[in-house]
């Protein structure tokens, strides 16, 4: 895999090494429980959200925002409209905690492959597509900033 943010690399390696589905689920649920830490503040966006921030193919209706930081990086915020969208919430927390504040050229290198390493190879096509949709928006925001500079 191309170089991506170190914290994300470590997390992906840890998750990929888990073979027990129950253990993996418990770790992801713990991450989803931290969703409020990455939830978009009302000062940044209120509902109904601009559809341009909506993650494609995500049935849980996840949204992504990126705020420019003084050091040139981005801080990411999320919302997931489906209160039962735990996987989307976990994905949002993972990205919010590992790619916010990281070099943009590393953020654009984050591969869709991490979805399967984190959530398991057997993840359904629809679920995988939705989680990749969240990641795609995260990369798109970073790519847009790089193209501006």
């Amino acid at each position, binding site marked *: 895999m191309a170089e991506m943010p170190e914290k994300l690399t470590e997390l992906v390696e840890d998750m990929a090494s888990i073979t027990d*589905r*129950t253990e993996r*689920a*418990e770790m*992801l*649920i713990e991450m*989803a429980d931290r969703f409020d830490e990455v939830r978009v503040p009302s000062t940044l966006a209120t509902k109904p959200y601009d559809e341009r921030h909506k993650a*494609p*193919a995500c*049935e*849980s209706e996840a949204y992504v925002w990126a705020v420019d930081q003084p050091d040139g990086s981005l801080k990411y915020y999320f919302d997931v409209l*489906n*209160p*039962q*969208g*735990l*996987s*989307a919430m*976990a994905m949002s927390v993972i990205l919010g905690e590992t790619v916010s504040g990281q070099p943009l050229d590393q953020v654009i290198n984050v591969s869709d492959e991490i979805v399967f390493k984190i959530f398991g190879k*057997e*993840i*359904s*096509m*629809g*679920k995988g*597509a939705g989680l*990749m*949709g969240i990641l*795609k928006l995260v990369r*798109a925001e970073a790519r847009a900033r790089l193209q501006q500079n």
Partner: protein
Amino acid sequence: MSTPISERDYAHPEVLVSTEWVAEHLNDPNVRIVESNEDPLLYPSGHIPGAVQVDWTHDLNDPVRRDYLHKAGFESLLSRLGISKDTTVVFYGDKNNWWATYAFWVFQLFGHTNAKVMDGGRAQWEREGRELTRVVPEYLPTQYTAPERDDSRIRAFRDDVLAHQAAGKPLIDVRSPAEYSGEKLHMPEYPNEGALRGGHIPGAKSVPWSKAINPDDGTFRPASELKTLYEQEQGLSSDKDVIAYCRIGERSSHTWFVLTYLLGYPHVRNYDGSWTEYGNLVNVPIEK
């Protein structure tokens, strides 16, 4: 708030149970509550006490070919879940019972007709402040004997759909309007959802699956409203042979359930290949 199930004038009201009914039967040895979700994290995060999980990917799908499990797999699954032929299986899940009806549909391929759906699904149970637990129950295994899987009655394959479409028979596309029109695949910044072409099967009517649900509580709309939706607005009737489809057959199983059990249509099939198959087929007609 929705009306009681018995007052909604369904063709087969016995197939739906309320959350109250489930709460009263949590310890009924003849009932097995089954949770089936799109999101596999939901069940382990908390479920109805005594409920078991049927995971669509791990429990219902063939691991190699795009198909469902066969007789031996189904027998093994039900035996493991402590289900016998006499067990009333009650399905519930997330997103208005979207995946619960998918699992219900698969169980019907093997003739386990002693099955019901909990109206309102997981969200309704939670909204009512009812108990959830992370304890995974263990049941004594049974010796379940299933018939060979029978796809003929309620499952449509590609050639069935092509013949159906050529004959001008009714098709229901239950995806979103943007998927139906193919608009989504026209936006270059959006990834395609597993299909190379967007649009719908010619002649298919657009009736998004969630229109059958009360948005406030996820319960099914009464028969009068469903008839307005499907019959008055789309010209369907119970004497017709109907095929429903979506992307992979999950949402269309919900519509299959509505038409079959709530409106009593005797000839409804779910095309589980759906748009991920049809939208990738070479040289088939598509409408936008």
